[in-house]
């Protein structure tokens, strides 16, 4: 319920901000409306659980770009009430460009496949699945079946199926095999994976269970499972922990989503798959920096105010 309110609120704020940017005449007012839009975008990112991207959005856009816009305005504007009076031709050109953009946006909207699968990513979405407990709060009894490549159905201690949990969530629960905190503390949310008699499940036990699954329950194709199990049983993989099993079953970046908000994904993405574009952008920014430094070079020799006879 809260997420719905927040989501629509942020969306409305973003739209209002965008219109504000279009309609307001005073340049500093436009900057404030832009702030509203960027803030709303950050809010949406947070709602999506992408905390890192939301924070970076705030830092870079709201804190950086916007400040520089206002700073530029302050230095160069003749007076605060400067109005824009665009000419007829300019309005026309702007209209054409905008319509083209809108068209592109609509096309993308229509053609993209909106995967509306029961992916459990955030606590918010988990709440919608009717279970108001935190997924990790359960005594995760056993993995009953694979729902799809990335999800398993889990039965808790009382045998009640607690709905789809991502392997990531499973790995996270296992990740916190609590060497520090004793298990079983009443308020403890992060239960480790237990086996039947209450001991934390080890990698081998999970492996055994996955083996024991009847084929039809295995949504994952056999080849991947076999290869994973083979890799696990190879002599040089001594400590088979749950997350290694999860890692073997899922695809490469399964484990990477362990902490749930994608920072690791972003890092791997930037330095892994998309290294080249990342470097190109940094070179571009360097050029911008040098340009700005050149533009703002001091025309009057600011020799630290030595003054003296003129």
């Amino acid at each position, binding site marked *: 319920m809260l997420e719905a309110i927040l989501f629509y609120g942020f969306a409305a704020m973003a739209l209002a901000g965008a219109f504000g940017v279009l309609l307001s005449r005073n340049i500093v007012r436009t900057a404030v409306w832009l702030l509203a839009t960027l803030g709303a975008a950050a809010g949406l990112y947070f709602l999506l659980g992408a905390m890192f991207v939301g924070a970076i959005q705030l830092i870079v856009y709201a804190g950086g770009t916007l400040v520089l816009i206002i700073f530029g305005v302050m*230095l*160069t*504007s*003749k*007076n*605060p*009430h*400067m*109005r*824009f*009076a*665009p*000419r007829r031709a*300019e309005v026309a050109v702007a209209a054409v460009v905008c319509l083209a953009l809108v068209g592109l946006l609509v096309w993308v909207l229509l053609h993209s496949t909106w995967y509306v699968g029961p992916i459990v990513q955030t606590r918010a979405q988990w709440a919608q699945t009717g279970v108001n407990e935190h997924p990790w709060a359960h005594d995760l009894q056993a993995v009953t079946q694979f729902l799809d490549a990335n999800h398993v159905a889990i039965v808790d201690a009382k045998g009640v199926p607690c709905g789809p949990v991502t392997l990531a969530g499973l790995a996270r629960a296992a990740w916190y095999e609590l060497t520090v905190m004793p298990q079983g503390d009443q308020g403890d949310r992060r239960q480790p994976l237990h086996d039947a008699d209450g001991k934390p499940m080890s990698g081998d036990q999970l492996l055994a269970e996955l083996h024991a699954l009847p084929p039809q329950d295995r949504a994952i194709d056999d080849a991947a499972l076999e290869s994973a199990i083979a890799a696990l049983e190879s002599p040089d993989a001594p400590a088979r922990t749950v997350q290694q099993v999860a890692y073997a079953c899922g695809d490469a970046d399964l484990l990477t989503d362990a902490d749930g908000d994608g920072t690791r994904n972003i890092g791997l993405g930037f330095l892994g798959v998309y290294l080249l574009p990342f470097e190109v952008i940094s070179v571009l920014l360097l050029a911008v920096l040098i340009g700005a430094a050149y*533009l*703002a070079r*001091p*025309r*009057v*020799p*600011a*020799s*630290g*105010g*030595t*003054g*003296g*006879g*003129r």
Partner: protein
Amino acid sequence: MLDRDESRTTASLIIPDPVDVDVTRDDAAGVDSDVMTEEMLVNMGPQHPSTHGVLRVVLRTDGEMVLEATPHVGYLHRCAEKIGENLQYFQFIPYTDRMDYLAGMNNNLAFALAVEKLAGLEVPERAQYIRVIFAEMNRIASHLVSMGTYGLDLGAFTPFLYAFRERELILDLFEAACGARLTYSYITVGGVTDDIPAGWLERCVEFLDYFEPKIKEYNDLLSYNHIFIKRTANVGVIPPDRAIAWGLSGPVLRGSGVAWDLRKATPDLVYGRMDFEVCTGKGRMGAVGDCWDRYFVRIEEMEQSVRIVRQCIDQIGGAAGGHKAKMPKILKPPAGETYYGIENPRGELGFLVISDGTAVPYRVKARGPSFCNLAILNEVATDCLLADVPAIVGSIDVVMGEVDR
């Protein structure tokens, strides 16, 4: 785009009324590639925390860069000179107090000496010693205030309070001698109004012993503070020849390395018998004649004043005569004129007194040191940053009462 020169000539200090500027019209001449920051006329004063008193400096700035700084004075003008033409000689003494209200004793002394020279009066030796003691103590008090407010101008709040803690003790001594703490009128024509109370000299020595280590404390706290040096060294440099050409005097002149001190150049009273050095700026932290030098000259002068007062206190025992010469009921100096200048804490305070034989002077002209020192502000403050203007004004140490008279 408003043409740049047109905005320079309009001297209107208020922001021009909103104009519908068609930003997109690209007239080739107006817009050049660089970032065109717009010049502003900024009014620093007359109500401004760092212009000592009611000084107004109109700054033409381009961003943080100050292109021109024109001081406007006259907000504290009380036409003291016109009043001087309607008062008897000794009645004008209280007016001299209010000129440089931080160094009342020195102002009285200047006028009293001018009138005594005009009237050919001979002041007893003891009175001369008392006058030198009070003049030098007032110099210390005045330099303390200038050191404290200079710290304030640069953002260091604490030295101001330490300086006033010491100044209070001097004011207590003055209060014991003449009852007043700011406008004393203690030194009058012919000597001093009253002799110093018993035990005053011992308390004065006690103060000097307490005060001497304090100067070292100020140096550690402010003078050698790295940020203070960064803010004042090489800022507002006045070369010696320009200083003399502009008629600067006092610590401002000596800060530029010119060893010109009226206590040595034209020694009056008992200054001849005192041994003290003239402290000049040596460019220790930057160029000779920068703000730091002017500031440090004042600190060194405080030490010299302490030496002078100690010597006076030793020698006053042997001095003959009372505290005041025998004065006629109404002083009618012979017709004539004289100009007499002495070394006030801020520079040369000189009085041109013209008498026409009656009991009232024909013309009294006061040459205020701050009036002359302030004139160079425009030349020094161009091409400096906005934050340097308070530093330069503070180092020139202006008292508006003396500028506007």
